[in-house]
Structure formats: C-alpha cells, structure tokens
C-alpha cells in the first residue's frame, strides 16, 4: 500500500473519532452551564482546553467562542465541521480503499455546517451533537460490517484509537483536580455535576454504575477512564487496541519498527498500573506523561509507514 494511502486512512480514523469526541465535549459544556452558578465558572474554557484549542491570551472563552471553535470553524481541524470535511477529504482521496457503505456514511449531509452562523448553531445544539455522533457511529458501523480486515482496516483503526486515547487523556488533564482523592483537595469542595459531566463526556455514566456501584468516587472515575480494560474509551483499552493492530501489521508485512516496541511497552505499562501507584506519583504527572507518550507513538507510527 502507498504510504500516502496509509496516512490518509490513519487521519480519516482520527478525524472521525475527533468529531465524535468533540461532540461529547460540547454536550458536557452545554450541560455544565445548565447548573446554577455556571457564569462564575470557566466551564466553556475547560471544554476548549480539553479539545486542545489554544487559549486566547487575555479573555476567557464562553459559549459563542466554544461553538465557533468546536462546531463551526471550517478550517481549524478541531471543530466538528472541519473534522467532518477532513475525514471526508481523506476518504475521498482513498475512495477506492473504502467500501461504498463507508463512503455513503462519510458523505451523509457532509455540508450541514457550511455557512451556519452562531445563532443557528446554538439554537439547535443538541441536534447538532446528536447528528455528529450518529454520523461517526454510522461510519464505524459501516466499517465494522463491510470492510475487509486487512492493512487498510488496520490504519483506520490505529488512527481512531490513537485519537480516542489522546482525547480521554486531555479530558483527564483538564479535569484532574476534581478527581484527586479527598485528602488532596485543592481549593475546596467539588460538585457532583463535575463528575457526572466528566462521565457524560466520555459516555461512561452507565458503565460507571455497572462497574463500581454506589456513590461516585473520584478514585473510581479515574480508574474507569484511565485503566479499565473493558471500557472502550479508557486509555488502557485504546492503547491495547493500538498494540494489537500494530502487531497485526507487523505480522502481515513481516516488518517490525520502533513504534511496535513502544506500543508494546505502553500496553504493558497500562495493564500493570494501579490507581494507587498513579495517585502516589501524581495523577497530573501520569496523565501528562502518558499523553506525551501517545503523541510520540503517533509520530513513530508515521515514521515507520512513511507518511
């Protein structure tokens, strides 16, 4: 396969995933601001931080800026609009590598956000969020049911899991304060709404109740998002998928690269870690270090396959 094809498929996977994750972040922001006292908190700013959008130097961003950056901006690579365009563009460049069902899914209503203004976006925000999730879901479903399990499949899958791991890690990075154990409280009490919105942003509210029962405990929430091996948005789950996919490619090509070594090491690290160790060393430090590792791994994957 051409390296460029591999690159396009990898980024296709990343952009679909990013559109999906960004829609969850927007949902989290919209929900948090419904709680009394929202205006005094930097809820939208935290949403933008979690999406990795550069902070303006002087002002703190509110809802209009957040919707502009995460929904409407046609060029940023962060907004749902531009993620959809970029995913489709990458897919179109590899039109013949996709099944027609996948292409249909990418094509569905792809110009929905063209020229949309803030008012139209804000008025129907829940619809837009639903749409983005259905759009990403339709693509994944089509991929799951129609695509050959070959190297092409592998590169899309690599992209989507690298992106998902990074998104979850950024969410943890932004919200780590509310996940510190009680004794480490920085600056006073935390609200239930912070925990539930965090779980909503990662579609983990139900999963949490299934797995941990009882009251919310920040310890458990961190465990779900970081280490749980059954929760598909956890860092450990995503990196395990990345490792399995890379191992498959190494076998198919009969070639192994530095990315394989690093991915295997990361997978091991996450499967043996416990929340005790992580909190002992510092949650924030662990999250930052792992995020850094994921981005390095992404670069190694690109080096290995030449895109």
């Amino acid at each position, binding site marked *: *396969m*051409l*390296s*460029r094809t*591999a690159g396009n498929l990898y980024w296709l996977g990343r952009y679909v995933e990013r559109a999906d994750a960004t829609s969850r972040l927007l949902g989290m922001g919209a929900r948090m601001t419904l709680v009394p006292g929202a205006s005094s908190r930097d809820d939208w700013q935290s949403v933008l931080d979690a999406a990795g959008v550069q902070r303006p130097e002087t002002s703190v961003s509110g809802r209009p800026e957040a919707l502009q950056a995460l929904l409407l901006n046609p060029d940023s690579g962060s907004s749902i609009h531009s993620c959809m365009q970029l995913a489709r*563009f990458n897919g*179109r*460049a590899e*039109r*013949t590598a996709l099944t*027609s069902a996948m*292409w*249909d899914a990418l*094509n569905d209503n792809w*110009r929905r956000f063209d020229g949309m203004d803030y008012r139209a976006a804000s008025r129907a925000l829940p619809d837009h969020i639903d749409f983005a999730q259905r759009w990403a879901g339709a693509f994944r479903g089509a991929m799951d049911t129609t695509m050959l399990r070959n*190297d092409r499949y592998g590169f899309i899958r690599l992209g989507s899991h690298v992106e998902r791991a990074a998104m979850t890690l950024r969410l943890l990075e932004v919200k780590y304060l509310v996940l510190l154990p009680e004794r480490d409280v920085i600056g006073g009490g935390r609200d239930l709404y912070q925990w539930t919105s965090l779980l909503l942003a990662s579609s983990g509210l139900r999963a949490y109740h299934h797995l941990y029962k009882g009251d919310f405990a920040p310890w458990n929430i961190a465990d779900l998002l970081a280490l749980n091996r059954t929760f598909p948005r956890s860092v450990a789950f995503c990196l395990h998928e990345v490792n399995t996919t890379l191992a498959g*490619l190494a076998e198919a*090509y009969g*070639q192994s690269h530095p990315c394989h070594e690093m991915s295997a090491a990361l997978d091991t690290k996450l499967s043996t870690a416990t929340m005790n160790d992580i909190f002992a060393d510092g949650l924030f430090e662990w999250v930052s270090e792992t995020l850094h590792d994921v981005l390095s791994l992404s670069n190694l994957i690109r080096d290995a*396959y*030449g895109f």
Partner: protein
Amino acid sequence: MGPPGAVRPPYELVAQWIEDTGMALLDLRAKEAEALFRRVGITFAVYGEGGDPERLIPFDLVPRVFGRSEWDRLDRGIRQRASALNAFLYDVYHRREFLRAGHMPEDLVLQNPAFLPQMIGFDPPARVYSHVVGIDLVRMGGDDFAVLEDNCRTPSGVSYMLENREIMMRMFPDLFSKGGIRPVDTYAEDLRRTLEDVAPPACKGQPLLAVLTPGPYNSAYYEHSFLADQIGAELIEARDLFVRDGRVWRRTTRGPQVVDVIYRRIDDDFLDPLTFRPDSLLGIPGLMHAYLSGGVTICSAPGSGIADDKAVYTYVPEMIRFYLGEEPILPNVQTYRLSDTDDCAYVLENLEHLVVKEVDGSGGYGMLIGPKATVQEREAYRKRIEADPAGFIAQPTLDLSTTPTLCGGAIGPRHVDFRPYCLVGKQIRLTPGGLTRVALREGSLVVNSSQGGGVKDTWVLTDDSLC
C-alpha cells in the same frame, strides 16, 4: 437529425424505445440516473466558483447512435489520424523531415512552448508519444464527419464513456439484451495492454503501472481513480515518488517499490522540477533523467502537447499524406490561420460569422463565438488578435449536427460532438464508442462540461439498424 420527421436508420431502435417507454417514465429514470451518478461519486470538481464544489455532469438518457458502416469509416479515420500524429511527434524530435520538406513553418514547432528540446533524439518505447489520442469529431451533415481538434497529451472523459454505459445497462437492460450494441468495457483491458506494451528497457518482469494524478482537488480526480482501479494500477501523486539509481520508486508501507510505467494526468510543467520549473514544489526531481535513460516510461511522452496546438492541427491532413501516403479519411474543419496575413484580414472582417480560438487554449475557455458575441466583446477580441495574430485560429460557425435529447420533459434537438479514445502501443486499439458531449442549452454550440455541457451514452451497432 436529418430531414424533419424522418428517423435515421441507426436511431430506429431508440425511437421505438422512447415511444414504448413514454416521457413520464423516462423523466423518472433520468432522476434515478442522476442519483446513481451522485452515489457512485462520479463528479467533477469545480473549486473557487462557490456552490457545490463537486458537480455532476448532466447525463442525457437518449443515446447517440452510430450504425455499423458509419462506424467502420470513423474507425479507419481515427486510427489513421492517431498513427500520423505519433509519426509527426517522432519526426519533430528527430530529423524533422516534415519541416524540411517545407510542409509546415519551422517556428511553429521550434518556438512552440509545448516543444521540449530535452526530448530531441530520444526514442520512447515502441516510438509512441501519445498513447491515448482523443480526437474531437463533429458531423457536418449527411455522413460527413470532420475533426475539430486533437488531444494527444491527456484527453479526459473516458470514464464517462464507461460509466454512462454501466448506468444505461442497469436502467434499460432490455435494450441491450438483443446483443446489437457493441460493448465498451474492453477499454480498460486495452489501456492496460497499451501501457504494458511500452514498459521501459529497465523493466524485466510484469510492469508495474501507475496513474499519476495532481490530487483530489483536480477536476478530473474521479476519472484518475476510476482508471487506476479499472486497470489495476496504483493511483499516485508526485509526492509518493522519488528517483534513485535511475529508477522511479513509490513510498509504500513496506518500503520503496519500483514503478515502471506512469500514465500521467498532469502537465509537462509539473513532471520534474529539475527540468521544467525550478521554482515548483510539484513534480518528481530526476524523473526526466530516469525517463531518458530508460528507467521508466511516461505516457504520454513529455512534449506530446505540441500536437494539440490548434495551429499545428491545421497541418494534420498533410501529415497523413506525408507519413502514411494515404488520403485523410476524416478531414479537418475549415480553419483560418491568423499567422497568414490574408487569412487574418479575412477573419478580422468577418468576426461576426466565425469562431476564433487561442492556439493553445482548451476546455472551451478563451474563445470567441462571433455570432453570439456582443459588439463590445468582438472589438475587445479584435484587439487581442491584432496584438498577436499567430496566437489564434478561426473556424466558420459550424452547422453542427443535433441529436435527440431529453430536455424539460420533451425530446428536442441539441448540438453534439464526439470524442473517441484511440490507444496506441505496439498496436492500435480502438473501443467502439466514445464520449458524446451535448450542449444542453437550446441553440448552444459549446459542449464543454465546464460550460454547461452534458454527456450521453454512445452506441455503436453491430449492424446499420437494429429494427
């Protein structure tokens, strides 16, 4: 169409079919066809004009039909012309016998921007320069066809020939079930063989073919990916390739792999920045060196574009006599060379009756259609001609033939032209069919897709009539 009310024999089946199907159902089918095209992604891209950047070329359900004897003559004429054009290209880059014999002014070749001095003395594999020759034809009334222009560099549109037929077969299987319409799907196989015919000397085994595209933003990107798919070639961009040890390699997930034959759909200027445009970031550095030393074949050969020049076109009938010793089967449309002072004076006096074209123009841009232009437009164009007469040719407005076309719920006459695609490798291969373009606006003569033209399926019958 011929005399009012009369159906020419090849169209009898179509007339019968339209009557049996009825306009209401035809209209419905037309909408279904459009949905199919959209779904398959058969679009051409128009960026920078606003609106939908991916547009459909309107597809007309009523086919254009050639009877057997009509086609047999066209077939001979097309092959003849494709051979002569390739012989001319070889000659231009070797002994220039045609020029020495005084058949054509030397400057027209040597001063032409499409002429590439780097190609002088080089023998491309099988001595073929233009491997896909697209010849634009019009019917002049009766059974007389004439050539409007030649496209030796990278004629586009062949994917429509194939897709239009697929859609027609899918929507109207009954029409095809009698077996009287010759298939066109041999084209892909023939193109593959043609490209394999011209593998470079360095290639020892099965040649690896690649289609070189400028990328997804190009208007014909769909066609590039379609063709790559059809002939089992890799669809590549310049940035996928590099040159090492006199050969061309593509970057793959398994490391570098060699490419033998490049069917390029980009212009000469963007092939190799070392040779053509040192300022360009596009292209593959060293490609020309690899080509000239036999490490790779480029199709069409760099420098083939000289045969597309509209002033050179006027000499093609003479080329046929000179190289092949035959009389041209397909004449040119009468053409005035504005480099000739008498012709130029005549044209300037008769602008309102003539079509004037830039010699290196294409796509229907930059031409003056005298009878349709305003006085101001004609005067503006006159100034351009006076500034550089040799940059233009003129042709009478043609009494182009029309064919029946579905428009606004009725069948009406619309002007058409026709582009067959002649493949030249170790032998010449011609698919019975081609691209029929139709000017969908009533009375319009411009069939280019960039200017509101549409396309039709083109049938070549196994007989002169199927009824």
